[in-house]
C-alpha cells in the first residue's frame, strides 16, 4: 500500500499532465459546446478588447486602400442611382390616363437589413480560420446570420457575445453553402479544401453543365444570404470526387488578406419563416 502511495506521489506530475491533456482533447472533440461557449473564444470581452485596440493601429495602414474601394463602390451606386432616376422620369411622364391593372406595392418592406461591422481579428495562417467582428448581440447580431463584404460573400456568424461576434468564413473547412453558376439553374455547394486562401471549391455540379473560365459563382437558395450575391469566379477545373459531378476551383471575390469592413445581413422575416417552417415539422 505504501509502495502504491509512493508510486502515485512520485509520478503525480504525469497524472496532472494526463488530466490536462484529456481536458484539451475534450475541448477539441466537444466542438459544439465549444462553439457556444463565449468565454473560450475571441468573442469574450478581454480578447475582443485586445483585438479592437491592435486593430485600430493596423487599420490605419489600410485606410488608403479602403478609401479607394469605397470610392469605387460609391461610383457604382451613383451610376445605378442615375439609371433609376431616369427610369422614374420616364414612368412618371407617361400617359396618366393609362389603366394599370396590376401595380406592385412601391413601399414594400425590404427583406434584408444590413449591420455594418468592422473586422477586429482575422486568422488565415492555419486551417481553422475565423473572423472576429466588433458587433455583437447588443447591435442585433445573432447566430447564423450571413456576412458579406463590398466584394462578396464572407461567411456566417457562429458565435455572439454582447459586443463581439465570431464568423466562420468561406475559408474554413466547416463552411458549406449552396451556390450556382450565373447562367445556369443547377446547384452545387461551395467548400474549402484548405490549400489556398484565395480559392474555394464549387462541388457537385452535374457533368453536363457547360462552364467557362471566368463564369461568376452566385449564392442560390439560402436562408441567410440574398439571392445572387457574388461568391467568386470560376478559375479552373478541380479534382472531382466521383465521375458524375464536376468540381471547379473558384477564385473568391472577397480578399481575406485585406478585409476590413463587412456587412452582417439581418433577414427581417427570419423569425416568421422559421416559425412557419416549424409548424410543418410538428
Amino acid at each position: 500500500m505504501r509502495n502504491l502511495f509512493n508510486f502515485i506521489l512520485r509520478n503525480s506530475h504525469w497524472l496532472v499532465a494526463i488530466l490536462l491533456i484529456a481536458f484539451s482533447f475534450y475541448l477539441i472533440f466537444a466542438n459544439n459546446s465549444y462553439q457556444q461557449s463565449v468565454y473560450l473564444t475571441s468573442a469574450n470581452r478581454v480578447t475582443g478588447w485586445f483585438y479592437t485596440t491592435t486593430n485600430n493601429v493596423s487599420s490605419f495602414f489600410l485606410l488608403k486602400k479602403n478609401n479607394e474601394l469605397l470610392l469605387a463602390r460609391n461610383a457604382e451606386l451613383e451610376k445605378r442611382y442615375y439609371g433609376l432616376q431616369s427610369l422614374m422620369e420616364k414612368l412618371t411622364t407617361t400617359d396618366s390616363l393609362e389603366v394599370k391593372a396590376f401595380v406592385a406595392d412601391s413601399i414594400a418592406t425590404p427583406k434584408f437589413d444590413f449591420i455594418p461591422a468592422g473586422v477586429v481579428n482575422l486568422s488565415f495562417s492555419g486551417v481553422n480560420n475565423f473572423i472576429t467582428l466588433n458587433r455583437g448581440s447588443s447591435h442585433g447580431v445573432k447566430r447564423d446570420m450571413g456576412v458579406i463584404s463590398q466584394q462578396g460573400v464572407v461567411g456566417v456568424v457562429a458565435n455572439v457575445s454582447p459586443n463581439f461576434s465570431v464568423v466562420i468564413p468561406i475559408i474554413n473547412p466547416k463552411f458549406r453553402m449552396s451556390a450556382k453558376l450565373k447562367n445556369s439553374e443547377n446547384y452545387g455547394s461551395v467548400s474549402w479544401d484548405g490549400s489556398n486562401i484565395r480559392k474555394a471549391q464549387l462541388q457537385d455540379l452535374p457533368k453536363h453543365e457547360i462552364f467557362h473560365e471566368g463564369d461568376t459563382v452566385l449564392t442560390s437558395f439560402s436562408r441567410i444570404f440574398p439571392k445572387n450575391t457574388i461568391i467568386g469566379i470560376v478559375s479552373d477545373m478541380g479534382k472531382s470526387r466521383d465521375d458524375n459531378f464536376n468540381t471547379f476551383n473558384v477564385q473568391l471575390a472577397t480578399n481575406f488578406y485585406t478585409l476590413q469592413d463587412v456587412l452582417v445581413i439581418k433577414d427581417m422575416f427570419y423569425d416568421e419563416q422559421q416559425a412557419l417552417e416549424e409548424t410543418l415539422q410538428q
Partner: protein
Amino acid sequence: MKLSYLYEIVLFVMLILLQVLLLNRISLFGIATPVLYLFFLLKLPMGRNLFYVIISGFLLGLIIDIFLNTPGMNAAATTIVAACRKPFMSLFFEKEEYDAFVPGINTASGPFIRFTILMVLTHLTLLFFIESFTLFNLPGTLLRIAASSFISILLIFALDGFIFRRKRGEQV
C-alpha cells in the same frame, strides 16, 4: 529567485502577445507559420518543479487557443511537450548540472540547439496533426510541419541570442 518568477511572467505575456498579434498573421508561402511561444518552456530553469512546467505549459496553450479560436489544440500539444521536457532534457544535458541553470544558445550551444530542435519538432508535429484531423492531407501537413519548424527554430535561436547575450555578460 523572486525576480526570476517575475521575469518568467513577463516572458509568458510577451510571447503570447507576439504569437497572437504578429506571428499568427504570418503565413510564409502559405505554408510556414512561426510558432514561438514554446520558447517559454525552453527557457525555464532545468530543475524547475514539474507541476509548474506542466501547468504553465497548459495555460500557455489554452490562452493561445482562446485568442485563436482553436479549441484545445495548442493546449494539448503544449501540455504533452511540457510533460516530455524532462525526459528530453536528460537526453542532451548532463545530470549534474546546476538546477537553476537556464539553457541558452550562448551558454550551452550544442545541447541547447539539439534540445530546441527536438522540442519544436515534437510540438509542431502534434499541433499540425491535431489541427488537420478534420482535413487529412498528409503531404501538405508534412510540408507545413517542416517549413514551420524550420522558421520557428531559426527565430527561437535569434530571439535567444538577442535577449540573453547582454544579460549573461552582466551576470558573470
